[in-house]
C-alpha cells in the first residue's frame, strides 16, 4: 500500500511540473503584456509599427526601423542559407556514403553548439573586413563593414545546422520504395530526387526553414555585434541597421529612467515572443503531419 501511495504522490508532483512547463509560455506572455500595457494604451499599433522616429526622451517610439532591420537581415540570411542547406541536405541524405555522413553530421552538431558571441566575434574578425575592403569596393560602395550584409552572412551560417538536421530527418522519412519505383522506370538518381523525393520532402523542408527563420529572427548577440546598430531603416545591403533583439539588449540599462521606455522595450520582447511562438507552432504542425505519415 505504501508503494502505491508513493506512486500516486510522485505522479501528482510530476504532473505539477508538467503543467508548469505548459503554462510558463502563457505566464511569460502575460507578464510582458502587462508591462507593455502603458505604451499600448497611449499609442495605436499602427503608430508604433509604422512611424520611424525613435526618440525615447521625447516620448517617440517608432518601431519601424527595427522591424525593417530585423526583417532584412533575417530574409537575407534565408536567401543565402536556403539553397546551400537544401543542396547539402540532399547530398547528405541521398548521395553521401555513410562514412562521409558519419563524419559531417557531428561537425554540423558542433556548429550548432557554438555560442552566438563566437559567431559575432568571427563576424567582426573576418566578415566585416571582407565586406569593407573587398566586397563593397568591388561593387563601388563604401561602408564600415557593419551592415545588413554582415548580419545576413553570420546568421546564415548560424541557421545551417538547424535547417540541415531537421530537413535531413524529413528526407529519411520518405520511404525507400518510392525511390525504387522511380529507378525502375529508368529515372536517374537526380531525377528521382527532383521529381519524387523532393515532392514528398518539401513540406518538411519548409518547416525546417521556418524554424531556421525564427532562430535567425530572435538571434541577439551575433547580430548586435555586426549590424552597426543605427536606428534607421536600411536602404542597401551595405547600410547599417538595428534589430529588435539588439534594441532590448543595448538599452535595458537605461530603460527604467525614462517614462514609457521600459514599456516600449518589453513590448519589443512581447512581439518577439508572439512571432516566435506563431512560427514554431506553424513549423511543428507541418512536422507532426510528416511524422504521422511515416509511422
Amino acid at each position, binding site marked *: 500500500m505504501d508503494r502505491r501511495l508513493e506512486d500516486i504522490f510522485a505522479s501528482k*508532483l510530476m504532473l505539477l*511540473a508538467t503543467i508548469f512547463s505548459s503554462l510558463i509560455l502563457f505566464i511569460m506572455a502575460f507578464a*510582458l503584456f502587462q508591462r507593455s500595457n502603458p505604451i499600448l494604451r497611449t499609442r495605436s499599433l499602427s503608430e508604433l509599427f509604422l512611424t520611424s522616429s525613435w526618440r525615447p526622451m521625447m516620448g517617440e517610439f517608432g518601431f519601424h526601423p527595427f522591424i525593417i532591420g530585423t526583417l532584412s537581415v533575417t530574409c537575407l540570411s534565408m536567401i543565402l542559407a536556403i539553397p546551400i542547406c537544401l543542396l547539402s541536405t540532399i*547530398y547528405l541524405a541521398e548521395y553521401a556514403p555513410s562514412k562521409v555522413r558519419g563524419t559531417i553530421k557531428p561537425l554540423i552538431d*558542433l556548429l550548432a553548439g557554438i555560442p552566438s558571441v563566437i559567431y559575432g*566575434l568571427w563576424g567582426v*574578425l573576418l566578415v566585416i573586413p571582407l565586406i569593407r575592403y573587398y566586397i563593397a569596393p568591388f561593387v563601388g560602395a563604401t561602408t564600415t563593414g557593419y551592415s545588413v550584409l554582415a548580419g545576413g552572412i553570420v546568421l546564415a551560417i548560424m541557421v545551417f545546422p538547424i535547417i540541415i538536421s531537421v530537413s535531413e530527418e524529413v528526407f529519411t522519412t520518405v520511404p525507400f520504395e518510392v525511390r525504387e519505383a522511380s529507378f525502375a522506370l529508368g529515372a536517374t538518381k537526380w531525377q528521382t530526387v527532383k521529381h519524387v523525393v523532393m515532392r514528398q520532402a518539401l513540406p518538411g523542408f519548409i518547416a525546417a526553414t521556418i524554424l531556421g527563420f525564427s532562430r535567425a529572427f*530572435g538571434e541577439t548577440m551575433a547580430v548586435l555585434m555586426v549590424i552597426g546598430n543605427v536606428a534607421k531603416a536600411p536602404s542597401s545591403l551595405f547600410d547599417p541597421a538595428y534589430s529588435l533583439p539588439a534594441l532590448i539588449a543595448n538599452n535595458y540599462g537605461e530603460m527604467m529612467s525614462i517614462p514609457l521606455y521600459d514599456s516600449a522595450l518589453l513590448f519589443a520582447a512581447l512581439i*518577439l515572443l508572439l512571432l*516566435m511562438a506563431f512560427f514554431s507552432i506553424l513549423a511543428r504542425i507541418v512536422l507532426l503531419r510528416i511524422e504521422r505519415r511515416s509511422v
Partner: protein
Amino acid sequence: MNKRKLEEAFFKGLMLLSTSIVVGSLLAVFAVVILNGAPALSLSMLTQTPKGGYYLGKEGGILNAIIGSVYLAIGATALAFLLSLPIALYLNEYARKSRFASLTRLSLDVLWGIPSIVYGAFAFIIMLYLGARASLLWGIITVSLFVFPIMTRAIDEVMKMSPFKLREASYALGSTRLETALKVVTRQALPGMLTAVLLAFGRGIGDAASVLLTAGYTDSVPHSLFDPVATLPLAVFFQLGTPIPEVQQRAYASGVILLVLVLLLSIASRLSTRKFMKYVIK
C-alpha cells in the same frame, strides 16, 4: 554523355560545393577565432581576475568570467534537470500518448524557439516586481528557464526510444510505475540523458543575451548566490567593445577559451555516451 547525366553531374557538383561551404564555415569559425586569439592567450588570462585599469590594457585576466560561467552553467543545468526529469518521466510513463502529452511537447518545442533575450526580459520583470538585484541566483533561474525545454525534449526523445517490453517486464514483477520509471527507464535512458544534460550545459555556458539583463557583471569572483556574476560570453562582448587594441586582443583570447570549453563539452558528451552505452539493454 546525355543531358540527363550532365544535369546530374552539375547538381552533384553544386551539392558538394554547398556541403563544403557548410563544413568550411565551421572550420573558418574555429580557424579565425583561434588564430586571432591564441597569440593573446596567456596563463594570467586564466588565473587572474581583472586588476585596476584592466580595461585600459593593464594587468589581469578573466578568471572571474570563467568561474562565473561555470557556476552559472552548473547551477542552471542542475535546476533545469530537477524540472526536466519529472516532466520527461511524466510524459513517457504516465501521460503516454494522451492529448495532454502532445500539447505539452508542443509547448516545450515552442519554448525552445523563444529567443533567450525574451527570457532575460521576462526574468527582469519578475526581478523588478520582487525588487531583486542582478545576481548569480537570477542568472541561474533565467538560464535554467531557457535550457529546460531543450533538456526535457532531449530526455523525452531517448525515453520514448526505450522499449516498452522492458517496462512490461518490470510491471510483471509487481513494481509500480514510479519504480519502473526510476529504476528501469531512467537507467535505460542514462546515456541519452547525459547527452541532454551536457547539451543544456553548453547552451547555458554560451548564452549571453539572457544573463545580460539578469546576472550583472563584476570584476570579482562571486562569493554567494546574491553576488552579481561575470560570464565568458559577456567578457568577450564587453572587451571587444572597448577602443583599446590590447583589450580587444583579450576579447579574442576569451573567445578561444569559450570555444575550447564548448569543444571539450562536445567531445566529453560523445565519449561519455559511448561509455554508458554498455549499461543499455538493446
